[in-house]
């Protein structure tokens, strides 16, 4: 059936298309093209996500991501409620990193309304965001290993550490995952001295965990064989496609919003930005492990310097909060990439427009480019190395 082969070649790339310069213009197939719908119920898809894959033998000749299964129109919901009422909803975007999401919304609203944040609250935000980053990077590396076929054990190493951090979240915010902790102009409750001591203890044990994780996994023969040289993403394409986060830095582009925007108080801490050299899955995996180590460094500095004081700006208005008409775009370096909130106020109590810039969704733009020509089994790994959460992709 040569007709089907030709049609695949035509539909894969339209001739006038200028974009995607590492995507071959035509895909030459040798045999029959087989269509496979990977998902929506597939163990590797981190939720309900589908990849419509066209295969030539084992080789991927076309891949279209399909999502929206979890779509609940978070933006529309948020436009029907007050600014603060969307705060608990942001926990449900990227439910692994709820505190980073809280910070992104708080930062945008503070920009919109011109609010100040007290010192202690800034430190608490940094501590919580970096703990969240450790949770995310450890579990995403753990999931990656699980997708390679090491069922359970490596993931449990990551989850053992995650549990300790989630216990800290529960002690401070009342919830392990749905933290709903930050407010416009500060944080909801103050951290006790006992909580800070407990955090210091957990952080002191983290370098040993990072060493152990690295020793078990990085020189593992299977990990190296499956990850090195697979799923290459060129830096020019990564920039043009708006890829952010560890995925971008693994492609060798030095762009960390903590360093670029210095939002919060990130200009006070010393940390390095790990960059990839080979732009493959292994680099993404290493960049996450190295970022985890840098986060431990930031935590140590923040826990040493945290001052006493209020955690909420005394002038911040909780009830009857109506920002002046205008708009603001605020963004943070969430563990998965640039998480931004774009808000338009018309002077009312609800936002006129509320937009989430989801890093997970935009990082998926180049999924097809990375997978073309690779084997189907590697698609699972490439997809895992993008590190997405469907709650944020679908919103």
């Amino acid at each position, binding site marked *: *059936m040569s007709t089907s082969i030709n049609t695949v070649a035509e539909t894969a790339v339209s001739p006038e298309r200028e974009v995607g310069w590492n995507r071959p213009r035509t895909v030459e197939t040798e045999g029959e093209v087989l*269509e496979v719908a990977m998902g929506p119920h597939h163990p590797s898809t981190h939720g309900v996500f589908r990849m419509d894959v066209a295969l030539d033998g084992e080789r991927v000749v076309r891949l279209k991501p399909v999502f929206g299964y979890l779509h609940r129109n978070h933006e529309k919901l948020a436009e029907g409620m007050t600014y603060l009422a969307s705060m608990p909803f942001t926990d449900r975007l990227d439910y692994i990193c709820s505190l980073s999401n809280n910070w992104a919304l708080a930062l945008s609203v503070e920009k919109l309304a011109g609010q100040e944040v007290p010192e202690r609250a800034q430190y608490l935000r940094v501590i919580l965001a970096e703990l969240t980053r450790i949770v995310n990077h450890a579990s995403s590396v753990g999931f990656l290993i699980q997708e390679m076929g090491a069922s359970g054990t490596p993931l449990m190493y990551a989850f053992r550490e995650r549990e300790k951090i989630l216990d800290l979240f529960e002690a401070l915010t009342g919830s392990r995952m749905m933290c709903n902790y930050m407010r416009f102009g500060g944080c909801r409750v103050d951290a006790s001295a006992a909580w800070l001591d407990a955090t210091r203890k957990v952080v002191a044990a983290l370098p040993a965990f990072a060493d152990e994780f690295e020793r078990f996994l990085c020189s593992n023969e299977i990990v190296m064989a499956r990850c090195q040289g697979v799923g290459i993403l060129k830096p020019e394409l990564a920039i043009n*496609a*708006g890829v952010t986060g560890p995925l971008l830095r693994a492609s060798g582009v030095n*762009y960390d919003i903590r360093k670029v925007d210095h939002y919060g108080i990130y200009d006070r801490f010393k940390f390095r930005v790990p960059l990839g050299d080979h732009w493959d899955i292994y680099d993404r995996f290493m960049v996450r492990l190295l970022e985890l180590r840098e986060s431990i460094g930031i935590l140590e500095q923040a826990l040493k310097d945290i001052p006493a004081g209020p955690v909420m700006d005394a002038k911040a208005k909780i009830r009857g909060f109506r920002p002046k008409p*205008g708009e603001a775009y605020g963004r943070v370096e969430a563990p998965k990439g640039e998480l931004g909130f774009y808000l338009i106020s018309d002077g009312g109590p609800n936002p006129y427009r509320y937009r989430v810039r989801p890093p997970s969704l935009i990082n998926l733009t180049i999924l097809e480019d990375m997978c073309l020509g690779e084997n189907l089994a590697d698609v699972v790994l490439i997809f895992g190395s993008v590190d997405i959460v469907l709650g944020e992709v679908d919103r």
Partner: protein
Amino acid sequence: MKTVEEIKAAIEAAGVVPSGGAAVEIVHNGSPSGQHSLRLDPAYAVEVAKFLRDDADLSLDFLSNATGVDWPDKEISEKVKVTRPVTRTVDGPEGKVEETSEETVEETRKHTQPGYLEAVYHLFSMAKKHGPVIIRMRTVNRSDQVELPSLTPIWRSAEFQEREIFDLFGIVFTGHPDLRRILMWDGFKDHPMRRDYVDPDDFEYEPTPHDEVLLRANAHRAASASPEGTAAR
């Protein structure tokens, strides 16, 4: 980082748009964030976008956020003072007579400001590490002239985001390589992010893929010898 005024001047100096025209307008932002934006005439948008990306000073190589905003028709009522002749019947010495005099009265006038859809893009520079530069474009109306030029050929990151705007707001991006619904299902008809969207009563109704829906769904699939998507025979 250049201000919006300087960027506008640079665009006009480069000859991308006719100077002195309204192809690039500055939109001021009243919020303390101070993020002012540039409104582009859709006819020149692709050229301006290319300039913003390739200009050595700006090099806005990173399109971070693209989104839509719906501005529905607005009924504006304003009070105006009008002077007009008013006729009254008054009692005169020879019985009732009609008298006309000029009087100033207050009148409420209503007019509709036509609505439009807007696409907003937030640009940053990874090379120079500055931003955001915000550009926006308006459609002519909200019903039948909703086309805007796609910026996906300039910045690939607009690919999924413009699909999302198309899906949720109904802006049709001309020149987009793969414009179809992204979050809602293929059989869905309306655009839920519009301000006048009303939830249907049976909002959990999802058409099963058969008949007309199947035909539409198949248009998005890779061509195959067997339309049901089973293995090719």
